[in-house]
């Protein structure tokens, strides 16, 4: 007996096929994971099951045996479909902040669903909403029901979303990357919650994700999607143990591997010369205070306090922490883009010692940001983007000399004329995320820095591409003895890249030391929870 039977589902946008004929089934109470990289069509598949994909042209069939008789979701009239949504099939989204209406309390939003779908009266709805919230493990559910979405933490918002989705006890829950926007330690909790609720309610879950760890922990069966096709599906253990398709193997093999020059200092050796050295580094933001008081004085928010660290030549210092832990602030302060107090020396020099010395420092230290889309100006050509540093630091260079340097830098990051005709005059929109990140690296490398600040360099990329970019960074480090200040939330990336690690929490360094020691024998409870969350 199957709950959902999808046959030959095709989804096209404007004549372009995004999903190209896929078949899968879900049994009642089964947990199926749909895995794939961005653009593989997995989210569109889920949306088209609820017919929520706008301007999409769907064909095929999706037989759903919900409460009562079996219906074809793709052929149902709109008003009948509306009854199915939320009632029989519910959905939770990746970003709970945008999926909840900021103008209503979460209690009201859950009550609305109950009122619409089950026709309860106001008082009953409110009470039921509180019960639902409590069942998702939100403490003080009665009080939290009166909170607006912005008053809740990310994890609590996702719990509220889940409570809303489960309001009508659906037979099938579509979960679209439900943990991706959350911090690592919260992810585990949400996943546990989903597992527990799935068991209690006996519902089926279609989990859409790119995270193989999550699949392994959560799902019964997995379907691997590539470019609009399901290339392999089967029980999780079987697929992970004996992947049949090349793409599945590539996905499973995408865990970043360590390939860096290890530290080999014996106790008697003099310490390596340090490229970056900081002590008692602190960053304080001024914030607006609420009410009338805010007119006269400003509050302060300490984003980073008392940070002390050093980075040796050719080494990587990994900084790991959750969102809001101050790790990006640390990067901006190190780059001199953010006012700070305390002492910070780059090559023995400090920021603000004069124009010439600052300019020299800029050259010593470069940065690669997280988002490959906002880090390249869409209106500049590759030549302008990559060559900009030369305009500042080597103004004597003529146009031809600059072009040669740009081409050399591009070749170094694996982009060259052979692959892209006229690469110099192309615009960023023609490159994929990984290619753009390579362009950003080339822009940083062209001024021959000694230290690269990498602010979550791969977290916006797909796993297979993440691996390739990390390999490139490792290669560059070996070739140029570059030092990296690597900011990330991903323990696997730290494990593959870093020599030393700082663990940041709420602006404070809670643990520091060599990577093996910190990750294999964590001392601080927070570090332990971080490591445990991905193990």
């Amino acid at each position: 007996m199957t709950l959902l039977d999808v046959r030959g589902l095709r989804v096209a946008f404007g004549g372009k096929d995004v999903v190209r004929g896929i078949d899968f089934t879900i049994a009642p109470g089964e947990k199926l994971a749909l895995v794939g990289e961005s653009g593989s069509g997995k989210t569109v598949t889920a949306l088209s099951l609820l017919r929520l994909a706008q301007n999409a042209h769907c064909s095929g069939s999706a037989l759903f045996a919900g409460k009562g008789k079996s219906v074809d979701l793709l052929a149902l009239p709109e008003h009948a479909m509306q009854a199915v949504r939320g009632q029989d099939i519910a959905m939770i989204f990746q970003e709970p902040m945008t999926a909840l209406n900021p103008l209503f309390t979460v209690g009201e939003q859950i009550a609305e669903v109950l009122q619409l779908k089950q026709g309860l009266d106001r008082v009953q709805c409110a009470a039921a909403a509180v019960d639902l919230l409590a069942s998702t493990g939100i403490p003080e559910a009665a009080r939290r029901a009166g909170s607006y979405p912005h008053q809740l933490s990310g994890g609590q918002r996702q719990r509220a979303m889940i409570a809303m989705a489960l309001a009508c006890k659906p037979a099938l829950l579509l979960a679209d990357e439900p943990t991706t926007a959350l911090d690592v330690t919260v992810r585990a909790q949400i996943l546990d919650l989903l597992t527990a609720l799935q068991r209690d309610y006996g519902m089926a879950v279609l989990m859409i994700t790119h995270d193989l760890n999550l699949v392994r922990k959560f799902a019964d069966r997995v379907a691997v999607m590539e470019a609009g096709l399901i290339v392999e599906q089967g029980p999780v253990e079987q697929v992970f143990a004996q992947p049949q398709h090349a793409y599945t193997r590539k996905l499973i093999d995408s865990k970043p591997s360590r390939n860096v020059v290890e530290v080999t200092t014996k106790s008697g050796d003099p310490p390596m010369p340090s490229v970056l050295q900081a002590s008692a580094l602190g960053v304080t933001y001024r914030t607006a205070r609420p009410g009338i008081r805010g007119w006269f004085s400003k509050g302060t928010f300490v984003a980073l306090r008392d940070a002390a660290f050093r980075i040796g030549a050719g080494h990587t210092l990994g900084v790991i922490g959750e969102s809001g832990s101050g790790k990006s602030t640390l990067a901006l302060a190190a780059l001199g883009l953010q006012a700070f107090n305390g002492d910070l020396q780059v090559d023995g020099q400090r920021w603000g010692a004069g124009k010439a010395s600052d300019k020299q420092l800029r050259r010593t230290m470069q940065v690669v940001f997280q988002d490959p889309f906002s880090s390249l100006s869409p209106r500049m050509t590759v030549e302008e983007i990559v060559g900009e540093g030369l305009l500042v630091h080597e103004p004597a260079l003529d146009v031809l000399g600059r072009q040669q340097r740009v081409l050399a830098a591009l070749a170094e990051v694996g982009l060259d004329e052979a692959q892209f005709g006229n690469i110099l005059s192309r615009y960023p929109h023609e490159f994929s995320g990984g290619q753009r990140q390579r362009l950003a690296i080339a822009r940083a490398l062209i001024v021959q820095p000694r230290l690269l600040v990498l602010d979550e360099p791969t977290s916006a990329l797909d796993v297979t591409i993440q691996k390739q970019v990390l390999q490139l960074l490792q290669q560059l480090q070996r070739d140029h003895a570059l030092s990296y200040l690597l900011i990330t939330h991903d323990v696997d990336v730290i494990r593959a890249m870093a020599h030393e690690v700082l663990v940041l929490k709420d602006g404070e360094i809670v643990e520091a030391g060599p990577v093996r020691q910190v990750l294999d024998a964590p001392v601080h409870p927070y570090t332990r929870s971080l490591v445990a969350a991905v193990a």
Partner: protein
Amino acid sequence: MASSNNTRAPSASPTRRAWRRFRRNRLGYWSLIAFCVLVVVSLFAELVSNDRPLVVRYEGQTYFPIFKDYSEKTFGGDFEANTDYLDPFILERLSTGGNWAVFAPNPYGPKTLNYFAAEPNPSRPTRANLLGTDDRGRDLLAQLLYGFRVSVLFALALTATGVFLGVVAGAIQGFFGGKTDLAFQRFIEIWGSMPELYLLIIFSAVFAPSVALLLVLLSLFGWMGLSDYVRAEFLRNRQLDYVRAARALGVGNWQIIVRHVLPNSLTPVVTFLPFRMSGAILALTSLDFLGLGVPPGTPSLGELLAQGKNNIDAWWISLSTFAVLVMTLLLLTFMGDALRDALDPRKADQDPTADVGGVP
């Protein structure tokens, strides 16, 4: 996959792609062409509608009255005064013997009075005055043509100054933010609450009315709306990573503004251009209608509308002026719509050109 890309033409810049999307909107594209044709025709209005002949051949000599004044004596008249080429006597002299004159298709200038109209002024459309005359006996077609030119040129100038001031003010506020922004915002609030219309009335009473004065006064108030949009764009763009990366490279503020932030902040400016043009044309027309606009005697659509109101039975005045105005504003609005669609980031995202080459 990689090999096929080698042969691809060099890539199109974002501006080029926006232009392609603009051209795909037929209505907007043809509106642009029609508007350009109208503007060009009106710029050469002297060749189309003029009371002086373009070329005169008189007694074996060639004259160019369109460029140069000649006294009546040149053509056998009695006075030193400038020749009135529509005078029947002069006309006769110019057409006898081997003499000839080439007139513009519509032989009236913007100020030419038709002393020989068959009907009392305002005269209805006749063969002599294709669209009739206004209540002073001036040819309506000439009035409309020259009035259109004044309107468009005025609107262009007003839009240019408004865009310039708005972009500069918005850029300063948005890029530097903080106290600069705060001070500027308060200034704009105070400046924006001044009663513009009353200031115009007062100034037009104090100073001799002129197009330049009007341009200055309207420019003083016309930049604020745009500066808000530019400010918002700058506030958004200045904290994007590519600006941070440029800072990390050591690029100076000025370079960052000009090279990075400004080109990425011009979308609202370009989108609003046609709408600002039509707004400026309307503003001038309304002021002229109220008699606060261009000095008397200048051909103007607003003044013609006022005449149409005063001579309500002379339907040809109000109707033709109305038609010209509607057509102008409509063309501009169609252009604006197409431009807005072309620059819409959501539409831009659907461009199926991403992902080239084999390198991830």
